């Protein structure tokens, strides 16, 4: 199984973003090298919706160039599910167009125990990815 290692501080940033903007879905991009995340990019949800997200192309291009100039790779695309489980919806699968990245879903369904799970979504197929939060006792293996 593929894995993704997220530093605790990045994990916390992702959670805080999701909580702060709930019930609106949030989204972003994680960059790093190999399986280790080094940088988080918070993106605008152009749909400003509680059950959909779409990134702004202008922001996407800026982030892609920044990742490249930093010598990093895009490792994951994340978004939140404010009221549903951390599993990909039909819409998530349909719009998982970017290859070679892990799709992360942050679920706030249980406000006391947010869940983060990772998936490979390719050609309609869903495969789980192990997500490890480093420098933390928290484990979100899926």
């Amino acid at each position, binding site marked *: 199984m593929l894995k993704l290692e997220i530093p605790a501080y990045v994990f916390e940033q992702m959670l805080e973003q999701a909580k702060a903007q709930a019930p609106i*879905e949030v*989204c972003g*991009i994680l960059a790093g090298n190999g399986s280790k995340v080094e940088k988080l990019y918070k*993106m605008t949800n152009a*749909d400003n*919706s509680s*059950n*959909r*997200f*779409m*990134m702004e*192309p*202008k922001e*996407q*291009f800026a982030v*892609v*160039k920044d990742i*490249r100039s930093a010598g990093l790779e895009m490792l994951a*695309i994340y*978004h939140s*599910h*404010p*009221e*549903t489980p951390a599993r*990909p*919806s*039909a*819409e*998530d*699968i*349909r*719009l*998982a*167009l*970017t290859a070679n990245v892990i*799709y992360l879903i942050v679920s706030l369904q249980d406000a006391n125990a947010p869940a983060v799970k990772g998936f490979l979504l390719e050609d309609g197929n869903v495969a789980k990815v192990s997500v490890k939060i480093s420098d933390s006792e928290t484990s979100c293996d899926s």
Partner: protein
Amino acid sequence: MNLVVNGKETNITDGLTVSQLLVQENVKMPDMVSVELNGQILKRTKFEETTLKDDDKVEFIYFMGGGSVVN
């Protein structure tokens, strides 16, 4: 003719349009990509009529979206 495509030097046939470049770059769903040409986002309606020139810088990226919506 030389272009920079997604940050990489690329040699292409002269006279290629943006649409043709996307095909050459194995973009399966060109309707689902955004294209930036020399720093400016190109309208989708211009993909077919825009002919690329030497040293153009092209970026293309798939839409990134989804959500918890139940269809």
